[in-house]
Structures are given as C-alpha cells and as structure tokens.
C-alpha cells in the first residue's frame, strides 16, 4: 500500500436502497452473473437461505457511492471488504462508515434493516503519485 492520505472527513454519508427482484436481475444482466443463488427461486429455496440472495457486489456499490459523496473523485482508493451475511431479496440495506479509531482509513459497512452488518471493510485514500500496481 502507498502513502495514506488523512482527510477532515470523520463520518461517511449514509446511502441506502432496497434490494428487490428487479435490482437483482438488473445486476445479473450487467455482470453476466446468473448464479442460481441470486436468480432462481427454486434453487434458492433448496439452500439454507430459503430464497434468493443478492449479489454481494450489488450492495457493495452503496459503499462506493458513500465514498464518492465524501471524497468526490479523489483517487487512488483502496477498498477491502468481507461479505459477512447474505442479503435476502427484498431487504433494505444502508451503507456508511467512519474514520477508524485505530489504524488508517475508514471503517465501512453495509447493514440490513435490523442493523446487522452484511458487508464490513476498510477504505483508504492513498497518495495520488502512488505507482500503479
């Protein structure tokens, strides 16, 4: 990782959406990801989830939107996340984040309507003259 940039931003804006069938199918079309876990009701019904789950990246975009609202087009940005809980179809999710209490960068997350984390991670802004990897 290159030199990390510190900013005055302490809280990242909240961004939310409802992950419904239309949004899942739209994301499947964009990414060509037709994993039956996401798009096949019968397949998903036979899994422990019981119904389709959204593509993790669909909800991840809310973190990118939050980062863009906070930092505009400032780059490079490094974002490392884990998908910790599936997002069931029909769930409303919200992304946000805040400056890390320890360490550099920002803790970022996507949470479901009960407040449980579905995506957690860390975003860092790096020096603009960082050599591409």
């Amino acid at each position: 990782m290159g030199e990390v940039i510190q900013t005055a931003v302490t809280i990242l804006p909240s961004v939310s959406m409802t992950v419904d069938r239309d949004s899942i199918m739209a994301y499947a079309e964009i990414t060509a990801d037709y994993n039956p876990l996401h798009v096949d009701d019968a397949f998903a019904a036979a899994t422990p989830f019981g119904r389709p789950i959204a593509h993790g990246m669909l909800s991840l975009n809310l973190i990118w939107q939050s980062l863009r609202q906070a930092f505009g087009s400032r780059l490079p940005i490094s974002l490392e996340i884990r998908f910790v809980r599936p997002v069931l179809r029909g769930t409303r999710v919200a992304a946000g984040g805040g400056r890390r209490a320890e360490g550099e960068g920002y803790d970022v997350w996507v949470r479901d309507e009960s407040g449980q984390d579905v995506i957690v991670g860390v975003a860092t802004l790096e020096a603009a003259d960082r050599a591409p990897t």
Partner: protein
Amino acid sequence: MHAECRAVLTYDDFEPGRSLGKAQFSLNQTVLERWCRLYPSDDLDGVMPHGMVAAISMRAFFEAVPERPPGNIHAGQMFELLRLPRSGETLTTRVCCLGKEIRRERKRVTFATDTTGLHGPAFSGKMTILWAK
C-alpha cells in the same frame, strides 16, 4: 468449445499463480446508462462510476472462468481504484488464480484481476470465492 460441453471446474483444478486469461470490456454510453438505471445517482456525465470496478472485474472473471459450479459464494473482495475511465475506453482485465486453501472445511479460491486501458492501469482486485465443488 462450447461452454455447455466443458466440465465444471473443481477446487483441485486451480493452480495458484496460473493465468486464466483476459477479457475486454467496452465502456460505452449504453453500458453507463444501464448502470444508471439501477443506480440513478451514479450518472457522472460519461465517467465510470466507482462501483463499476466490481461489475467489470466480475464480468472478466466469468469470461475467464466460465465453468463454475452452481452455489459458489463470494466471500471477500479487495479493490484498488487508480483512475476512473471515460466512456469510449476499452478496458482489458487479466485474471489469474492467486491461491487456494481449505479452511473450516470450506474450499476458498482467491483470484486476482488487473484492468488496464488506453490510458494505463485503471484498477485491480482480489476476490475470494467459496468454491462449491
């Protein structure tokens, strides 16, 4: 060979360090409009929204690794976003297997993606997938 004739890749088939190929993606107005129908606030007047790094990387992965078993789960993801390409740029993403391990009886395979365009490196990523077979 047609995809339907290929055998599904299993965990044992992956060799860490091995290139899996590359895929091209034409970032054009049609693609951007499709994205903005799903995420209306991502209209950046011809500039790629940050979150499209995920879609482009995933499309490349699916093209490079078409023989995926149903039920794979995306567990983790890292991105380094260096610049935002503009409409009209063709992006090339190279995909390789970075590593694999079995942890808590789950087969984890990590892939690297590196995306470049006419104006140089744009973004890179690492994705960890729980491989179903």
